[in-house]
């Protein structure tokens, strides 16, 4: 009876919440108050797929949901992206019958790295994807190893781990777990033999602290590594990107499936590959997966094109406090051969919490913008002076830099007849301050 009431209450609250445009975590929160063990009382589907990692969780989950749904599976998933235990509870109860049976073939959960251990105590994934562990929101997360320790507690015996072979820290999760499927990229055309970036988190072996050797770097410390002191090394991937043609914007998976990229960058390739792997493990044929991914248009608005007067531009949503995310955006701007102007905005560090810490600016490889084709760089927002300090050490000539206190001023400066495309690099917390002043 308690189960029945809890489910009813959760469904009604969610229904009201949707009308009022509220988020999805409150109904679950109340459900857990009424019946703390409600998640143990419901009947879950045979497949429970969880996705976590620093970057790309939402994109990966959206893609998996798209592939599976298009291929006839009924998927229950957290579309709103609320990824802590309350949001997951709302999802589960809202997808359940009043008798407590989840009406889906597959439950698909995006999970916050730090809270996975609480959520999965009740809902144990059958398949668990970990995409990457980067320096991300360190003002909350401490550092990647701190997150690693928290995530380790969320891995229960018997789960099928699906891990990124190219990320040394992620591959450590395999240690005591025998059931691992690896995904990764083979040596790619644009790989480098030398490390390129500010900090090298793969320099030393996570186990024995000896120097690691890299046969190639895809970007930052992601690549093919092996330890010079013990037997720790990158594992051979079962699902792999065998070719990446960024001029054409096409990657090849497992030597035969071509997938077209929405953005000609490595930005999304691991999300695609992780989704491909999961869908294949659930039993979808590889040809069908590739077809679904090719027809998929991401709705999350990470990349927005706009016009400002006669000028064209692209806003690349990057994550503040996440240097790898910024580095990816910088690469895209740097690859613009026709020449471009770049605007970087740091106005609020986070939309969810307060901090004025800008240490992370020093981890970003802004030096990548020191190129002929980058005609100028505008630095704007509350923390424009901190940006200016950081840029004074990039080697970019001072006459190419302009520091502006507000986004409004930056828009005014850019609103002219120049021919170059504009690239805007900023975060969720700041992007609307720009987009509301241009035509989308």
């Amino acid at each position, binding site marked *: 009876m308690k189960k029945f009431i809890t489910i009813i209450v959760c469904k009604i609250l969610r229904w009201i919440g949707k009308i009022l445009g509220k988020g999805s975590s409150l109904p679950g929160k109340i459900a857990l108050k009424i019946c703390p063990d409600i998640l143990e009382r419901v009947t879950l589907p045979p497949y429970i797929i969880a996705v976590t990692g620093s970057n790309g969780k939402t994109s990966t989950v959206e893609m998996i949901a798209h592939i599976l749904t298009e291929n006839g599976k009924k998927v229950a998933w957290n579309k709103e992206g609320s990824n802590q235990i309350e949001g997951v509870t709302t999802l589960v109860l809202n997808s359940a019958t009043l008798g407590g049976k989840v009406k889906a073939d597959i439950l698909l959960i995006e999970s916050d790295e730090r809270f996975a251990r609480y959520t999965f105590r009740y809902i144990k994934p059958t398949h668990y994807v970990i995409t990457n562990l980067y320096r991300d929101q360190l003002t909350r997360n401490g550092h990647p190893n701190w997150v690693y*320790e928290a995530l380790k507690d969320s891995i229960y015996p018997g789960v099928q781990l699906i891990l990124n072979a190219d990320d040394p820290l992620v591959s450590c999760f395999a240690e005591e777990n025998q059931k691992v499927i690896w995904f990764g990229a083979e040596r790619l055309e644009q790989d480098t033999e030398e490390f390129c970036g500010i900090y090298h988190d793969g320099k030393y072996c996570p186990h024995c602290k000896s*120097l690691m050797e890299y046969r190639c770097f895809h970007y930052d410390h992601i690549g093919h590594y092996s330890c010079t002191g013990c037997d720790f090394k990158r594992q051979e991937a079962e699902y792999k990107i065998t070719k990446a043609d960024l001029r054409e914007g096409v990657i090849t998976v497992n030597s035969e499936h071509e997938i077209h990229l929405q953005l000609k960058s490595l930005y999304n390739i691991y999300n695609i590959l992780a989704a491909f792997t999961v869908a294949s493990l659930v039993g979808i044929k590889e040809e069908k997966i590739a077809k679904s991914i090719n027809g998929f248009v991401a709705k999350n608005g990470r990349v927005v094109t706009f016009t400002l007067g006669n000028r064209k531009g692209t806003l690349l949503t990057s994550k503040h406090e996440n240097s790898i995310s910024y580095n990816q955006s910088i690469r895209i701007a740097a690859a613009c051969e026709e020449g471009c102007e770049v605007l970087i905005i740091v106005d609020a560090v986070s939309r969810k919490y307060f901090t004025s810490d800008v240490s992370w600016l*020093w981890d970003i490889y802004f030096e990548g913008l020191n190129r002929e084709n980058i005609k100028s760089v505008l630095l704007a927002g509350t923390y424009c002076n*901190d940006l200016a*300090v950081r840029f004074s*050490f990039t080697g970019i000539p001072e006459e190419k830099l302009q520091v502006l206190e507000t986004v409004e001023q930056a828009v005014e400066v850019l609103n002219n007849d120049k021919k170059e495309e504009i690239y805007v690099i900023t975060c969720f917390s700041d992007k609307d301050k720009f987009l509301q002043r241009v035509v989308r």
Partner: protein
Amino acid sequence: MKILHLYHDVMNLYGEYGNMVLLTQVLNTCGIETELILQPLTQRPDFSEVDFIYMGAGTEENQKVVLSALSEAKEELKDYIFKGGYGLWTGNSFEILGKLLVDCEGKEWKGLEVFSYTVRQQKKSRLTGDAILTSEGLKEPAVGFINKCSYIEGVSQPCFRVLMGMGNEKEGKTEGIRYENFTGTHLTGPMLVKNPYFLLKLVSDLVKKERNEELSQEERQALLTGVLAKETAAYEVTLRELRKRMEK
């Protein structure tokens, strides 16, 4: 002037290299030639003939690796600090200079015993937050961010008073350590970049060491409006934002 950046490749979690980039630039502006020695984990440190030692924050695991590595050079390091050697250790790096360090699993590690404090780490929650810290030798407060998992008991000479943020001890109102010319603080990342006035005091001390007289008032002013102009503007904004936050 020889500046040693200890274990720059592992004690580097929050962009600490920025401190050395700026410090050497400002010293050069003051007419002091600098040699920046970037010491990797794979090399044994040499403190002889060094004028300044810097170390930044690392993972708890790497902190222990560094502790073990430095144990070999323990006496030399003690000697350096006790004889008035200059240094700045930020983040969790200065924790290893105490008597005892108890890690997240309860394991006890013998410290380098330069100082007599005890460090207790825990893994329940990460201790993070913005900070405003004041110090007697400094007219303007220091600003920054603290990111740690420990509390320290038994610091006899703290460096700062806490205006906003966390101190050495739980609920404590003092932060870091200060011994003659050596400073330890949990402020992380490029704290010298964020704090031009703190940096200026340090530069002034190092200038005095080199040529026996401090920076004059005019020289300080010239640095603040010249090479440190952007840093000073950024500092004012951060202090303003943090004060606003404090009042809330």
